[in-house]
């Protein structure tokens, strides 16, 4: 055996010169506990700042219209009955979707497939509505559509969940790709329903049919409120809710305290998918049609809302409201001042980024060390 030669330098590297820690003016430490009051204050300031920044951006796009941002946004919310109800619907969709993806996110299962689960749920409902015999009573059709949507959404979520539980595949990519498959399926069935244009419209059976059109928005709103209440109870007061948060924290802990980790993953993600399916059902029943852009990407916005809401139901309600507000508001401002979609996209993004940036103050304490200057002065005096 040949002798192994060690590089002496590697074994005994020359010690690095360590500078004595210099006192810094700004000192950042991790925050250990945050009081409710502090949280609320930081949040309020962050929202106000975000709105002001958005108004400044508007001022860049069309100078002299700083204030129009606020009047326009508020106008989009309560300017008229129709505007109010359309805002409520935007809020309903965002809240419903965020609540739907919430349990899987709380379990740290990065479900980006909300959009696809909604689409597939909607597709199932649309197929039932289209191909069921018109002689079936309407309320029965409605129930079958609902169940089909819930089951389809659940199955769509269960596929990536199964592979995650069994083979530990990457759920982010898997759920994302399931979205594209869902999109493709909708287009496929649309061309079966209407070979000429590929439009899956004109559904009749089991579609919402209210004499008062405002009910089209009130009914989904009530359903989503019930979903939210259910989710609040489920996450905070049930064994399931506890189990999924433990699985989210550390899998090993969950395993050793006797939680069936695979079962919990499957169950939670299926619930997520089923709730997405409900949103899909509501959209189809409201519109009487389905298309691949039925959600206009809100499934992805919902992921952001769940994050910004710290996976907390109450905060998610507030965040959904704010995002709905800013989306509708910037749209209204863009219409009244004839600005492009770039303006709406930028405002929404900046609004979210500012709020996200203020998270820093929730996680860290900033200390200002005034002694730094005093010490410097005293040194100078000595010299």
């Amino acid at each position, binding site marked *: 055996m040949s002798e192994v030669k060690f590089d002496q330098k590697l074994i005994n590297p020359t010690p690095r010169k360590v500078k004595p820690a210099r006192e810094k003016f700004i000192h950042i430490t991790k925050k250990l506990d945050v009081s409710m009051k502090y949280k609320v204050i930081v949040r309020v300031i962050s929202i106000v700042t975000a709105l002001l920044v958005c108004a400044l951006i508007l001022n860049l796009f069309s100078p002299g219209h700083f204030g129009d941002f606020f009047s326009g946004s508020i106008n989009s919310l309560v300017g008229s009955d129709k505007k109010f109800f359309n805002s409520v619907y935007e809020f309903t969709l965002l809240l419903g979707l965020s609540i739907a993806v919430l349990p899987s996110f709380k379990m740290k299962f990065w479900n980006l497939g909300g959009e696809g689960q909604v689409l597939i749920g909607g597709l199932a409902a649309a197929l039932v509505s289209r191909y069921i015999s018109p002689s079936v009573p309407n309320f029965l059709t409605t129930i079958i559509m609902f169940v089909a949507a819930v089951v389809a959404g659940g199955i769509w979520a269960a596929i990536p969940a199964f592979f995650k539980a069994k083979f530990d595949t990457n759920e982010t990519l898997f759920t994302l790709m399931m979205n594209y498959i869902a*999109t493709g399926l909708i287009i496929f069935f649309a061309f079966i329903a209407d070979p000429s244009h590929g439009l899956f419209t004109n559904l009749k059976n089991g579609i919402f049919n209210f004499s008062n059109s405002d009910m089209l928005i009130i009914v989904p709103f009530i359903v989503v409120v019930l979903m939210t209440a259910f989710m609040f109870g489920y996450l905070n007061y049930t064994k399931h809710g506890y189990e999924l948060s433990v699985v989210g924290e550390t899998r090993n802990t969950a395993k050793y305290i006797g939680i069936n980790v695979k079962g919990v993953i499957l169950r939670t993600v299926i619930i997520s998918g089923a709730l997405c399916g409900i949103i899909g059902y509501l959209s189809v029943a409201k*519109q009487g049609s389905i298309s691949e852009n039925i959600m206009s990407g809100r499934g992805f916005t919902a992921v952001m809302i769940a994050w910004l809401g710290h996976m907390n139901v109450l905060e998610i309600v507030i965040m959904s409201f704010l995002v709905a507000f800013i989306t509708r508001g910037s749209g209204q401002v863009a219409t009244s001042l004839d600005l492009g979609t770039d303006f709406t996209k930028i405002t929404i993004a900046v609004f979210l980024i500012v709020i996200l940036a203020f998270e820093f103050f929730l996680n860290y304490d900033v200390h200002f060390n005034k002694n730094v200057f005093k010490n410097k002065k005293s040194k100078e005096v000595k010299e």
Partner: protein
Amino acid sequence: MKKVLRILGLGAVTVLGTAGLSACGEEEADLTIGMVCIGDPATSTYDGNFKNGLEDTKAYYKKQGYNIKTLYKKAVGENDDAKAAAEELAEECDVVLLDSYGHQFWAGDVAKANPNVKFVSCTGDLAARDQTPNLYNAFANIYEGRYLAGIAAGMKLNAIGSTAADHVLGYVAAWPYAEVISGYTAFYLGAKSVCPDVTMKTVVTKSWGDESRETTGANKLIQAGCKVISQHADTYGAPRACNTANVPNVSYNVSANGGNLSTTYLCSSRINWTPYFNYVVDCVKENKTIAYDWTGGIKEGSVVVGDLGSCAAEGTKAAMDEAAAKIKAGTLKVFDCSKFTVSKENNPWADYEADAEGHVTSYTANVVPDTEANSYVGETEVCVNGVIEESTKRSAPYFELNIDGITCIDAGDAYNENN
């Protein structure tokens, strides 16, 4: 902390106060027109064409001292966002325009709920069927423009060579719908009027705006021996591919030298919406009934053929002007059945009759859309005196025959994605 909040609160109040003030001082509008756009007019040539049309109408009436206010809802999809957008515009506007075909499915309910507002679903086809008193459709006889552009293409083919192998056109088609078929058939017939042995190859992209498919499609046509290429799709894919391969290109909805394609740009045609918008404004001003279906062509100024490019063949301008004059006078019909033949094998589903040579004598088109979405049955005779009358029974095109001389070399079966 309390102080900070108080200051912020005061700031917010001041801002809101000034906001209320700044809303005042606007010119009072005589008429407000809203438009629901499927894309952003700043980036989409399709929506941009609509917006320019409406802004020209606004400028036209401004000169007469009649103020029109325009509002745009941009990037509104063909889902119930379109309904919300139309509802909200209806609250402020006298006229609401929707620029995409699929928007019409959401316009019906809104029109019924707002009987005092006029709604126009541009390119739509349901108004005449549904007879909602305040919902209308409009289109333009763009096939006339394509026919003229076809003449430019035919002249170019004649200049390129004299054999049948030289006389091959290529066409990148978005979808195999009547709107597209009618357009490329007119283009082909225009070329055939000056170059009798011309043939045409088509590829389908199955998308209104997919640059890479349009590029691939154009390249496929170039490889198949096409000498001049045109397209009906919304990106610069095909014109750019032609520019790279140095093949003359006939554009659509694109400004004369848009995309810096000067060496291969041959000619272009586009719809000009201003005449129609003027018509709507006049009707509203004078309290007249607006037609359920409206179309305009070369004569009305609704179809515009752009300037010729530097690569156009000699004499093209004169030939096009002559044909344009005949179209205006009504002596030249684009779909003159004596000018083309059809065969049953290419049209297994179409409901038509032809003489022994294949010239159409009777054609029943699907003019009234069926309520059951999956049945497209022809019900209206559109072949009158040996001419298929396109866009007279309904504004949206309905000519769907596959005529001889045009072969599809790629039906887009590989694409199943819709954008």
